[in-house]
């Protein structure tokens, strides 16, 4: 320290000071309205809490939660969502592959596919209800193509409502994932394709043996983004489409927090669900960092 000339020392000190001053606004905002509430959630998850007064109760909330069959039904709904993600990746991959052929109008197609990004889940849900309802468009379309024997009523079935939610979800993230893959394909070397073509590789083998392996980084990114969306951003869609029902058949962890907290009023238990959700989401992020690091090695 003492070996640096005084002027340099002064400069470094004023730079550090400026750094701290420039950090203060964002630190106050995120600290006060994100970090503190997160710590509070963890604390309250070990209490009986009605929103006003709380009394510590050890791990009672967690014990009660893990003994609750509804909780496990909710967790399995999250698992079903997770199981649908490969479709939400594969369809955009194939479409991006087709878009990458740059047929007439491909820029227009790309813009249209990406459009749902701008639409709220509320609006998407509003239209989706009308598609899947008994007198809805799905049934009239089925009838139109001569399949009037098949009459669906997905939203009112205990085991089928989640299918309607998943179809809507895949429709919504389709554009985002397609854009990610198109961006990725643009970074690939076209010579590799030419070489494959010369070697007589067909479109499908090019897709599965060349494009997909080379896009792994983008596929991982899209996968994580889609899982996080499925687990933390579907509240509004579920709220509009099914209110978590019939029964709890479309309630996911994120919706369960709302249901237990703001509808039932057991805030302590809801906080415990919030902690479980946080642990799962945090775990997914950590897994992604590990995958990325390994991929970069």
């Amino acid at each position, binding site marked *: 320290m003492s070996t640096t000339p005084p002027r340099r020392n002064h400069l470094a000190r004023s*730079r550090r000071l*400026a*750094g*701290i001053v*420039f*950090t203060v606004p*964002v*630190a106050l*905002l*995120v600290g006060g*309205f*994100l*970090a503190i*509430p*997160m710590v*509070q*959630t963890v604390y*309250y998850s070990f209490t009986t809490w009605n*929103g006003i007064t709380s009394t510590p109760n050890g791990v009672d909330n967690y014990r009660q939660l893990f003994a609750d069959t509804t909780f496990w039904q909710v967790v399995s709904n999250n698992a079903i969502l997770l199981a649908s993600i490969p479709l939400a990746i594969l369809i955009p991959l194939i*479409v991006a592959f*087709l*878009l990458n052929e740059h*047929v007439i*109008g*491909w820029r227009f*197609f790309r813009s*249209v596919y*990406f*459009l749902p*990004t*701008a*639409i*709220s*889940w*509320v*609006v998407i849900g*509003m*239209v989706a209800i009308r598609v899947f309802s008994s007198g809805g*468009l799905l049934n009239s379309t089925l009838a139109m193509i001569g399949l009037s024997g098949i009459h669906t009523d997905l939203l009112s079935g205990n085991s089928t409502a989640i299918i309607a939610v998943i179809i809507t979800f895949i*429709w919504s993230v*389709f*554009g985002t994932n397609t854009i*990610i893959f198109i961006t990725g394909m643009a970074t690939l070397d076209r010579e590799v394709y030419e070489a494959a073509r010369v070697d007589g590789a067909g479109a499908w083998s090019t897709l599965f043996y060349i494009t997909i392996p080379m896009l792994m980084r983008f596929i991982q*990114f899209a996968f994580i*983004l889609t899982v996080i969306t499925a687990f*933390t951003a579907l*509240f*509004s869609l579920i*709220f*509009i489409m099914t*209110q978590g029902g019939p029964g709890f058949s479309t309630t996911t962890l994120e919706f369960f*927090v709302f249901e237990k*907290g703001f509808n039932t009023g057991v805030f302590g238990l*809801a906080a415990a669900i*919030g*902690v479980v*959700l*946080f642990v799962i*989401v945090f775990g997914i*992020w950590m897994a992604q960092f590990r995958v990325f690091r390994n991929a970069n090695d």
Partner: protein
Amino acid sequence: MNLSKHQFNRAVIFVTLSLLVVVMLFPFVFMALTSFRSYQQYLAGSGFSLDSWSTLFSVLPVVQELLNSTIVTLGAVLIILVVSTMGGFAFAKLGYPGSTAVFLLMVSGMMVPVQSIILPEFVNVSQIGWINQYQGAIVVYAALGAPFATYLMTTYFRGVSTELIEASLIDGASYWQIFTRIMLPLATPALVTVAVLQFIQIWDDLLIGLLFLQTPEVRTITVGLATLQSSRMVNIPALMAGSLVSALPAVVVYLIFQRHLVRGLTMGMGK
């Protein structure tokens, strides 16, 4: 012969992609067509009428709610831009002991699901007395959006040359002057990306509005629409008119700034 097979393939691709356009545009067409029918015409499946639009405006304070959405969204976006550029500048160029740790903590804020903080957030904000006040929702939206925005800005500012800053310091500029006169103008593309991403996200959000802005006077259009749906309103054409109105501003922003959105998406991947 080979060429025609090639052309045939391209035609198949074109048709496939066009069919997908129909699937993706369908909700918009459905909303628009349905909203210009009365309820009876909707059931009958034909006709043209503005009834549903007047119904919508009579059951929902559309103009007030659009105004509320605008105030809340722009307020939050503005705060996010200010704090994320300042923080990004500090993390990228003005390192101090512990700044890396603060940055990592900040970035880990991106991993916190809204639902995991919403209960204490609601209780805290109501204790300040900010429920049903614009500033309550604004500050919550800003806090939720700030970590990702700060991450993007930090990444962006790391690419700015340090010599530029040092040269200005020697010329006698203060850090604040460097920030406003050099860093901010350089960061305009990143600022637009952050603003567009956040605008769409906040405009389209339901949960925060539902909890923090409950009265019709301060309610956003998205919340207003959701309350119509949950009140079991059966007038589908009016609901579709409302959906169209609420979707339009974000769609316009999307159409103008599409390229910035794509960039934001890929910037999220790091380099």
